[in-house]
């Protein structure tokens, strides 16, 4: 596509990157077909191609207002369009640049500003989030349904004493997951132990950075990334084989640390190494499939279920991992049920469900319609955000897939 970025911007690092991404777009419109917001709203401006155009004119120096900001905000960043795009447009990277630019050049209404700032500063703080969640649980009977539905009930964790293995991998605890669903990492630790690997947690690591970065507090996000790298580095030097992600949302972000920090001379190299070492839990188990099969065979069948799997966008589009979790669940003896529209987002998308509740709820209900079609006993997924969001709209139990192994 023809571009004519403003001179001052074109010479910046963001400008060069944006220009090369924009030029790869040939305006074919294939992305409209798989964009969740376009499916619902039917407006070009709420499609990837429309947003690319809005960003292009903004970066070319046209007047930009809250209109552009609104359409960029409405993007779920699910990156389904990247999977669909035949010409390889890196939309996710472009919208990071576009959002940063728009945020700097358009003033938001005060209410929005405060809400976004509160989320960006509060959610990544694991301890604070945990105690607030406890308060929320106590107050649940008094809260309106819309809010109460978002608060999951307490999940008990069976303590598991792992054997000491020579093989070690680092696990990311994450920000909201330890409070919302501590059983996920516990299950991961149990399964990894069974196949001869210790999962270790670095005490200073926390939020992967996605929450604040995608709320356009990009510097805060980058700081979170640097902090995690510092926390993991000694373990990496001590021979940890991989950094294992149990939330695909964090995985998609950590795998891009190398990209996010490429202009930071102190961290660029380390960030690239961290990204290269990062694996989704399903990738690790696939790699260790032989050992996993032996363990499962020795253990004998565990209560097998009829399962509908929801593949998070950060798994299938962000990390391009497809069919792996499904295969692992089948190996473990579960029955995978057919689900349609598997490529579409459930509407969770990080803080999106709080910021764009209307679109988010429509997508959630559409997704749950497909997931519940064959009457599963359990809905499985691979990301904490999707898990709590889907659970808020259904009585069918929604679990992380590793809990079913």
């Amino acid at each position, binding site marked *: 596509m023809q571009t004519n970025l403003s001179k001052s911007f074109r010479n910046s690092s963001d400008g060069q990157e944006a220009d090369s991404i924009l030029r790869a777009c040939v305006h*074919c419109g*294939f992305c409209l077909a798989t964009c969740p917001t376009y499916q619902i709203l039917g407006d070009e401006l709420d499609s990837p*191609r429309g947003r690319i155009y809005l960003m292009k004119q903004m970066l070319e120096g046209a007047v930009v207002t809250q209109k552009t900001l609104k359409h960029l905000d409405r993007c779920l960043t699910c990156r389904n369009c990247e999977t669909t795009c035949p010409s390889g447009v890196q939309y996710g990277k472009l919208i990071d640049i576009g959002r940063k630019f728009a945020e700097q050049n358009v003033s938001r209404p005060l209410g929005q500003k405060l809400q976004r700032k509160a989320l960006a500063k509060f959610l990544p703080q694991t301890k604070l989030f945990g105690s607030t969640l406890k308060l929320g649980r106590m107050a649940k009977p008094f809260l309106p349904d819309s809010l109460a539905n978002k608060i999951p009930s307490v999940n008990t964790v069976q303590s598991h004493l792992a054997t000491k293995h020579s093989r070690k991998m680092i696990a990311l605890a994450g920000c909201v997951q330890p409070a919302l669903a501590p059983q996920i990492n516990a299950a991961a630790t149990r399964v990894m132990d069974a196949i001869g690997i210790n999962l270790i947690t670095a005490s200073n690591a926390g939020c992967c950075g996605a929450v604040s970065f995608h709320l356009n507090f990009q510097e805060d996000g980058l700081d979170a990334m640097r902090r995690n790298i510092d926390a993991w580095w000694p373990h990496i030097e001590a021979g940890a084989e991989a950094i294992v992600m149990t939330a695909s949302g964090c995985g998609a972000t950590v795998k891009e640390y190398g990209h996010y920090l490429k202009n930071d001379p102190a961290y660029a190299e380390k960030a690239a190494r961290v990204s290269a070492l990062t694996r989704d839990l399903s990738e690790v188990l696939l790699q260790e499939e032989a050992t996993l099969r032996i363990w499962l065979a020795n253990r004998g069948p565990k209560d097998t279920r009829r399962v509908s799997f929801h593949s998070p966008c950060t798994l299938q589009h962000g990390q391009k991992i497809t069919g792996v979790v499904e295969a692992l669940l089948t190996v473990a003896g579960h029955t995978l049920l057919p689900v349609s529209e598997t490529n579409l987002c459930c509407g969770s998308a990080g803080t999106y469900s709080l910021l764009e509740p209307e679109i988010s709820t429509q997508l959630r209900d559409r997704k749950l319609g497909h997931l519940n079609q064959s009457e599963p006993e359990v809905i499985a997924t691979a990301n904490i955000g999707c898990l709590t969001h889907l659970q808020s709209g259904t009585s069918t139990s929604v679990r992380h897939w590793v809990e079913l192994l």
Partner: protein
Amino acid sequence: MISNEVIRRLQSILPPHCLLLVREDLKPFESDGLTAFRNTPDVVALPETEEQVRQVLAACRETGTPVVFRGAGTGVSGGALPVDGAVLLAMTKFNRILHIDPASRTARVQPGVRNLAISEAAAAYGLYYAPDPSSQIACTIGGNVAENSGGVHCLKYGLTVHNVLSIRVLTIEGEELVIGSEAMDSPGYDLSALMIGSEGMLAVTLEITVKLLPKPERTQVVLAAFDDVEKGGAAVGAIISGGILPAGLEMMDKLAIEAAEAYAHAGYPLDAEAILLVEVDGTQEEVSEDVMRVREVLLASGATEVRTARDEAEQKKFWAGRKAAFPAVGRLAPDYYCMDGTIPRKALPAVLRRIAELSVEYALPVANVFHAGDGNLHPLILYDANQPNAWQKAERLGADILELCVEHGGTITGEHGVGVEKINQMCVQFGSDELQAFHGVKACFDSDGLLNPGKAVPTLHRCAEYGAMHVPGGKLPFPELPRF
């Protein structure tokens, strides 16, 4: 510019989120899939109900305001290019499948439904909608009706016109017409053939009833590689004259293979000069026999490799690469210009040779993708729009290719429509009497010429001007007309 009165009337008809009025919102609608032609619309209407469409058209008729219709904006002839002073009316919010009748094998759908969504919904009944343009994932059925779109499978199953039973349309006069019926034939003139492919010049489509086909018992795809494009072209003729009617018969040359492979990882042979994809379908026995015959013909035509897809997944990959070939070419150059001409099958080798020569003369790479079976060529001219004059050069090369098609007894469009892109070549294709007859038909439906003005059928003056600039083979077209 559009008058304030028109805007006031639109504001009284449409809620704010269905009406775009400021430049920031309007610019993204400045082109469809053909980005070389751009024009920012004055206003975009995104109606949600048929009543809103009716009222918008009434407002336009009463104020003499032109209207341009738009679907998903995937067209590649500029059919949805905005026109100055016009309302751009996008039908994308009409995206519901209204009814699928598995007994009569029909689907009734709104015009904004995606082509592929019909087949996806019909799959539950073992049925599908046959026409499958490359953009089928995104293009709307309303747009398919406007352009009479084809696709990979139209060789055996026909174009849109052969697969639509009836359409309900609204004219600019405010008259609602149902054209065609669910029966095979209807009394009176067959207006379906007139309406389908009329490029938004006659009416807006409100509802479409399409024919669904049962999925064949079995399909199989054979891939053949050639070390010479012309040998591939000759193999196409040999298959058809051998009495085989494949469901799809597609050809890609080296550049197109390279781009498509980079996207789809279909396993295409990258060292081949051309590949043919041949799909046969039918019963188990028919398919087994046809695959054998196709293999023999391909090998006899000099194929260096003949491969049969191992399973359904590989068949899908073979097609995924082909269907994404146009935009995948975006990996090789920032911009491409997609041509759409037809030629008699026997002329394929000669036309390919000449296209290769033209590519060298203009110093612009050309990737070739064709529906080889029905002689429909899609040469993709690669260029860089950021370079001065690159587009003008690409456009001239494109015009030469289209006129080459006409020279060989072909036509200037196979399935993409004329739009604005090929309007000059219409002057090469048709004489003034024919063009006048076209204008007469248009006047029956839209006497004020408000629907999609300046598209599809050129004025005689335009042809005279084009003829003065461009004299193919020393013969002046329309010699009877005065020159300007």
